[in-house]
């Protein structure tokens, strides 16, 4: 009996060790459920489920062997997931943060537009909470898509719809900011510096993530300058 137990345990360990476990691939992202289905699955804990769903979602197509993260992800399905998760907990800023800062940083302009449309559509539902995502969307529209009218539309929406007096002046006057002749790195540094100075970023994970993003922009622009 002891030999049987030892053999079965050994077989279990060897079997699991031989399996390659990695991040799920893009094709594995299933179709998004409805917000009502997510609420049902949450069993009365929508805040917890919404955040857990975001942690699960960000694992898709994020493998290290991917030349460009999320390049193979079906962005229509992705946006459907983000919309459903945001509807599950409308007060969470995670879906819009991921949309603007992660999925919006895709070299494919069509995919970027899908994400920016999503952010712009969701912004009016809670402008005083969701303005940082739209501010970054305006930056992406100007510097990645070179679409100045789109960037101005986003900036004007922030100015028109936000009413919270604690929102920094540079965000409410973003249209001027968009029209200024500055490059992406300068604009991103000003925006991030402004967010840090107002104490808006309190989450240490978010701070680390945004600082890493700034370093990435610096590296990329440095390579472009050398290439010229």
């Amino acid at each position: 009996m002891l030999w049987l137990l030892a053999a079965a345990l050994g077989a279990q360990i060897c079997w699991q060790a031989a399996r390659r476990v990695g991040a799920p691939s893009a094709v594995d992202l299933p179709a998004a459920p409805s917000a009502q289905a997510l609420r049902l699955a949450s069993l009365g804990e929508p805040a917890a489920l919404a955040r857990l769903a975001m942690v699960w979602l960000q694992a898709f197509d994020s493998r290290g062997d991917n030349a460009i993260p999320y390049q193979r992800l079906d962005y229509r399905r992705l946006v459907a997931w983000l919309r459903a998760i945001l509807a599950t907990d409308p007060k969470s800023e995670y879906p819009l943060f991921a949309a603007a800062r992660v999925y919006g940083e895709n070299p494919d302009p069509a995919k970027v537009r899908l994400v920016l449309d999503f952010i712009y559509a969701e912004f009016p539902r809670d402008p005083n909470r969701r303005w940082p995502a739209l501010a970054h969307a305006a930056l992406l529209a100007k510097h990645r898509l070179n679409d100045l009218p789109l960037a101005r539309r986003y900036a004007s929406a922030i100015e028109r719809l936000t009413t919270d007096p604690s929102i920094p002046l540079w965000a409410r006057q973003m249209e001027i900011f968009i029209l200024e002749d500055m490059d992406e790195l300068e604009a991103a540094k000003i925006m991030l510096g402004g967010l840090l100075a107002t104490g808006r970023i309190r989450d240490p994970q978010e701070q680390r993530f945004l600082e890493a993003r700034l370093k990435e922009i610096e590296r990329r622009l440095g390579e472009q300058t050398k290439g010229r």
Partner: protein
Amino acid sequence: MKHSITVARYLLVEALRSGLPWLAAACVIAAMAVSGFLSRVAITEAAALQASTAAALLRACAVFLLTAHVVASVAREANDKGLELALALPISRPAYYLGKLIGYVCIGALLATLFAVPLLAWAKPADLAAWWISLATEAAVAAASALFFASALTQTVAAIAAAVGLYLLGRSIAAIQAIAGGPLAGDSAPAQIARWIGDALGLLLPRLDEVTRSDWLLYGAPAAGDCARALAELALYFVLLTAAGLFDFSRRNL
């Protein structure tokens, strides 16, 4: 009442001497570990994710531990013929049943207290107090439900399944009614029947999705009036389950 308090006291001593305190401590450690791990991979709202996940896990653990403990305790008492011995003493059936219920409610309150303490790291005391009271009330309903099913059903597994099933239905009935009544459900006969069944269940089940929510710890507890109304609804359901249990226990042929 004196007999009921005595029965309750012995139940508390039994619970404290069993493996329940260790299991509860293990649940706290596991919930903190899992939520801490998940918060490390989040790119934003890490503290909110940790608080909401820990609160949701601890809430589920409190209800499950209490339900399993109540059913196992009743089953052990039946197997050891302790029930017949207790009823041979000068104690009425209602007093004995109420004594057990009071004991289990106290155990639920202790579990709620133990599980609320670690959440002080993220939540404001006022919001956490509302969450704690709500969890203690929810645990009391779970205890009453488990005691009712454990007394009424002879099989341990069936009693646990019934109690857990009632709890899960109570947490999801609002979403079920919303889906059944939504525009996508259509107007066909099966859809109408589903809607009626959902509404009928809604009349018979407690609205557990409105209490002990983790978003109270993130966005603030609801106004005192709304909290009181939700807890009063749970208290009413507790009385309903107690009355059902007393009725079944009193008429049973032992």
